[in-house]
């Protein structure tokens, strides 16, 4: 039994703190907004130029001038502000955003991250991902523990070193997968540490699906 996407999002939401400004990536990270604890003030940043992102609009109330970074229609809140892309990335690069939660293709034991290109395939671009991981104080990756290949085999995504082109070096603080949670000492030489196991998952199972070296210091 591993965690579902919803359970991974709920676990990621535990990283939120009252008063945080947070940028959420596409996919499972987006689901984190469903698990913001009641009474906690968290403002979501959308890098196309908005702070204080509201829920999707009701049908018929979509406004083409109001979209998020995934180009989805959204709504404003009483706390909302709008700004240019330069101001938006000033916020991000300048370290004013508390937390970035995003997906990944590969993460290395030292915190290196690859999530924007696969050589030989059509490259769509890095968007704001490189700016986010370079500038945001704390970077949390939420991803499946292994990649499922077309031929049915599985490849580890937690590696000794990423073999895909990097998005950033020594940028990831925490990795949440469907099997468990890892802390990374991105500034020092502490490497990767397994701190939580998903329901019904054993350390042995994680070891068999992880290429990166890691220590174990379970908190649950």
């Amino acid at each position: 039994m591993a965690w579902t996407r919803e359970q991974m999002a709920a676990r990621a939401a535990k990283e939120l703190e009252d008063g945080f400004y947070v940028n959420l990536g596409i996919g499972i990270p987006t689901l984190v907004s469903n698990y913001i604890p009641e009474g906690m003030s968290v403002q979501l940043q959308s890098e196309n130029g908005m702070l204080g992102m509201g829920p999707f609009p009701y049908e018929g109330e979509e406004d083409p001038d109001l979209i998020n970074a995934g180009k989805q229609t959204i709504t404003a809140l009483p706390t909302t502000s709008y700004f240019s892309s330069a101001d938006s990335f000033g916020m991000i690069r300048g370290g004013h955003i508390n937390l970035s939660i995003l997906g990944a293709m590969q993460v290395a034991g030292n915190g290196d991250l690859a999530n924007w290109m696969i050589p030989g395939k059509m490259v769509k671009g890095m968007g704001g991902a490189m700016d986010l991981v370079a500038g945001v104080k704390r970077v949390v990756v939420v991803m499946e523990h292994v990649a499922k290949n077309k031929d049915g085999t599985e490849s580890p995504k937690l590696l000794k070193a990423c073999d895909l082109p990097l998005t950033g070096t020594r940028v990831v603080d925490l990795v949440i997968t469907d099997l468990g949670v890892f802390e990374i000492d991105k500034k020092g030489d502490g490497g990767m540490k397994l701190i939580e196991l998903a329901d019904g998952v054993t350390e042995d199972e994680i070891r068999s699906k992880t290429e990166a070296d890691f220590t174990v210091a379970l908190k649950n």
Partner: protein
Amino acid sequence: MKKVYTDAAAALAGLLHDDMMVMCGGFGLCGIPDELIEAVRLSGVKGLTVVSNNAGIDGVGLGKLLDTRQVRKMISSYVGENKEFARQYLGGELEIEFNPQGTLAERIRAGGAGIPAFFTKTGVGTKVADGKEIREFDGESYVMERGLFADLALVHAHTGDTEGNLRYRMTARNFNPMMATAAKMTVAQVEHLVKPGEIDPDTIHTPGIFVKRIIDVGVRDKRIEQRTTRKRGDSTPAAAAGGGTH
């Protein structure tokens, strides 16, 4: 000096030439100068280097200039939504320079502000930094990026006055304000053209000094790329985020 022109073709008259660099405002299809792009298409100008965060979608926005092969090179952060783009790129017909989105925004801001280069943490240790100067400040490594200044900038604003002062609406602001500052000539299309004094000076985003020509295009029939809604009566705070990689 009269800044108001009757239509997009008149506003671009004498400004277009082959192999020029054009900046184009917008994020996805939000806040794009669609009428001006259409006039560029009709002009037949080619060999363009286009600076724009995205490349439109097939047949819409910059997608129109790709269909007609008028673009030689794109400088963008994300171009995923366009089949014709992919075909030309994979076929070697179109060049692309990927910039991290914040680096792109800052390159344009810097170019408009007379700053030839700056240092940023973004991209250090990645392909983006290949061949670029790296310098250490306060124990951390930064990569040097150049300011960008174009021959022409095309922007879209919600409201403008006849002096060229502009105000944008919601997330349609995005790259438009920086681009308005970063070209030899800036042409703006606005949905509402008003007299000087009708925009509260405290709410002007782009001062008129940056805008040389302006046209009134009326309220646009805008395309939505990802129409996403929730059901009435649904009390859960539906997920509304979605950035990170786009």
